[in-house]
């Protein structure tokens, strides 16, 4: 017996130490490279908070003001840093407050690991205080979730959580840990990161045949058109993508989540797709002969009416998630795989080309759009300030180097259309879910994910009031976030629809706001409100130059509409300029 033990310890020296489940969790987070956590304590997660008290030097815990703020901050962090965002919340209401953020992260493929406390295992199902069935509530909005009831499970479960959250098509993972498991002492033998789960195939096998077929189609194409999405960014394939675009000479347009993967002013970047996207990319989607979709999912806001979407074109779809192929648009050549590998393989097989004439067509549409829409939006001669000119002036000052975080609505569309982005991961917005209230907390997280960058949260007067409490997080953490409120005193996007499609029947879109500058002041945040054109540039400058956070409210014209617009139920080629 003694001999056997010696052999065992010689071949496999395992040092174990007795720790609590909570300590094992924190050690696991550190091993995964976590250095910032967004969270809010409560009864069922108290053992973890007790443990983190001794880890303050290794883990920067940011106390948010609401769990929804916590998870959006986690999302913002993940989006700018490329790392997994980590969020803590307690059981019951703490956990249910995460649901909106989980849904948002799920639809926008944002890697998160959320840890929720849960009541003692023996109380499960007894309607205990702050007990809620978090696993079942969050199942449709998580990539994976799991309830831990025994501390021994923690190291393995956390390693799986991180692996699942960030691999393949990323997404949110929720781990619910009962209080007894947080307290339970067990023999912790160290942390081993997970890199394989037999039932989980994050990367589909790349089939050369398809790359060849795709390259053939591209080489024969007269009017090829690339549309790309966040997949390029999530796959960290920006360089590879740029090489593809430049070698092929193909005009390329982006979904709002793909913005910034190649710079806004790249000569082959022809603009934004979708309902409020640019004129050329929408109309010419229905004229191209080969449509190359990369890391995007043909959302209805991008495609408009599906049965009139790119029917003339052969479609090549590159995606890491096989369930996206043929989901909305029937593919001619499906290229399954990680775009970090598929894009270079494709680039190698395509001929160097210059689609000058075809590109010129985009330029002609640009000119139309500029004359009909952009000129008045960015350079109005008189009248009240427009959202577009605020973004334009901001570009002049940031030179495209800032991270732009947007909320949801008119200001979001305007900011996405006009913001100059030089770098990848510098556009953070709630794309799929359209979560108002996203921007302020997401900007806090975005700053922690990109400390060297200026982070500007562009927010409407409606959305700002949805998570306004996170000003407290800014106050206490001292994080430097520039808050730019575009106040049109309306819930503008709904108002626009009511004007255009509901006969001007403005139903509950007339929203009153508090004195935002005074609110900011109450939180110790400097601020200013302006409404005159001559003050715009100096005020933006003051905001950007201020040491620490700053709130700038810009009163913009009340009833501006965002154009161009593809009305719901219309084809992309039916896009309206007014």
């Amino acid at each position, binding site marked *: 017996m003694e001999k056997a033990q010696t052999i065992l310890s010689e071949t496999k020296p395992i040092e174990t130490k007795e720790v609590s489940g909570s300590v094992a969790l924190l050690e696991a987070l550190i091993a995964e490279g976590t250095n910032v956590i967004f969270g809010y304590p409560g009864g069922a997660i108290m053992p973890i908070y007790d443990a983190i008290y001794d880890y303050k030097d290794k883990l920067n815990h940011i106390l948010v003001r609401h769990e929804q703020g916590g998870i959006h901050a986690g999302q913002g962090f993940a989006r700018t840093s490329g790392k997994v965002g980590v969020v803590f919340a307690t059981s019951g209401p703490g956990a249910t407050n995460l649901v909106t953020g989980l849904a948002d992260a799920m639809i926008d493929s944002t890697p998160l690991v959320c840890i929720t406390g849960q009541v003692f295992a023996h109380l499960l199902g007894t309607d205990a205080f702050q007990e809620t069935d978090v696993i079942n509530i969050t199942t449709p909005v998580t990539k*994976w*979730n799991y309830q831990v009831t025994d501390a021994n499970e923690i190291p393995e479960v956390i390693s799986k959580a991180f692996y699942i959250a960030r691999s393949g098509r990323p997404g949110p993972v929720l781990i619910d840990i009962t209080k007894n498991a947080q307290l339970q002492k067990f023999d912790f033998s160290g942390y081993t990161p997970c890199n394989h789960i*037999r039932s989980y195939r994050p990367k589909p*096998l790349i089939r050369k045949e398809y790359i060849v077929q795709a390259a053939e189609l591209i080489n024969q194409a007269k009017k090829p058109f690339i549309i790309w999405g966040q997949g390029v960014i999530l796959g960290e394939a920006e360089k590879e993508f740029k090489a593809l675009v430049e070698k092929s000479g193909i005009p390329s347009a982006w979904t709002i989540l793909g913005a910034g993967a190649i710079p806004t002013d790249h000569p082959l970047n022809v603009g934004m797709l979708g309902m409020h996207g640019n004129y050329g990319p929408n109309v010419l989607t229905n004229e191209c002969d080969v449509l190359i979709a990369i890391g995007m999912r043909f959302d209805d806001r991008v495609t408009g009416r599906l049965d009139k979407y790119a029917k003339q074109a052969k479609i090549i779809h590159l995606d890491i998630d096989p*369930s996206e192929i043929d989901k909305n648009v029937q593919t001619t050549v499906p290229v399954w795989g990680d775009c970090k590998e598929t894009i270079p393989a494709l680039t190698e097989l395509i001929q160097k080309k210059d689609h000058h004439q075809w590109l010129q067509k985009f330029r002609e549409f640009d000119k139309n759009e500029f004359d009909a829409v952009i000129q008045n939006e960015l350079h109005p001669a008189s009248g009240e300030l427009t959202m577009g000119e605020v973004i334009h002036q901001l570009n002049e000052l940031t030179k495209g180097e800032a991270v732009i975080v947007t909320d949801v609505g008119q200001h979001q569309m305007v900011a996405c259309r006009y913001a100059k982005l030089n770098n990848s991961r510098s556009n953070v917005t709630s794309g799929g879910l359209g979560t108002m209230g996203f921007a302020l907390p997401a900007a806090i997280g975005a700053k922690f994910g990109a400390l060297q960058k200026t982070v500007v949260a562009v927010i409407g007067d409606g959305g700002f009031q949805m998570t306004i409490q996170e000003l407290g997080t800014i106050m206490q953490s001292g994080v430097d976030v520039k808050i730019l409120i575009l106040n049109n005193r309306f819930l503008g996007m709904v108002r626009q629809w009511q004007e255009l499609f509901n006969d001007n029947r403005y139903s509950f879109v007339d929203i009153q706001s508090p004195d935002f500058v005074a609110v900011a002041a109450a939180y110790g945040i400097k601020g200013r409100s302006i409404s005159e054109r001559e003050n715009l540039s100096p005020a933006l400058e003051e905001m950007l130059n201020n040491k620490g956070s700053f709130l700038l409210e810009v009163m913009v014209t009340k009833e501006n509409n965002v154009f161009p617009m593809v009305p719901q139920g219309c084809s992309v080629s039916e896009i309206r300029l007014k």
Partner: protein
Amino acid sequence: MSNQNETEKAPGKQEYNITVYTENQIGLLNRIAIIFTRRKINIHSLNTSPSEIESIHRFNIVVNETEEVVKKLSRQIEKQVEVLKVYFNTNDEVIWQELALYKVPTDIIAEKASVERLLRENGARAVVIRKDYTVFETTGHREETDALIKILQPFGLIEFVRSARVAIIKHSEGFNRKLREFEKAEPGEETSENEFLNNGQKIFTM
């Protein structure tokens, strides 16, 4: 694109048998079920059981849908972390059975000889015979188990229950060989089968 024969062009809905190989994990049933409920698709029959491999579970799900819908559902199911593999097949491509139990009063059965004949004709056998009631069992396709309900109804059928469908895929080679590939870290062809390349195969796999 599918395993359907050229001659069998059925653009409309029909019964599909979805076979899912999974890990044995609490909550997975819900994760799979909500893929259907989210799309307001009714699950006609659902059976979970062990498979030919220890620790691997097998779901048999029956829906009445178009091939396109079933294909998309199957992809969504296979996307779940704990799901290893999904197959879908039309009724022609599987051998399937359902089990039904019928409880009838013993005195009536004992009295009427015709009942015994009917039961025999329908392949039923007695599972329990008590003084007060008798439970018969039959296995077969839906029409067969349904037929016996109609037959027994006049004889005072007390209770009826039918199991979910279990189905074996005619052309399947089982999962043992595939599982070994799944256990490797690098994806192989078995784990990343591709419908377009597998065109013409008898079994549709995702």
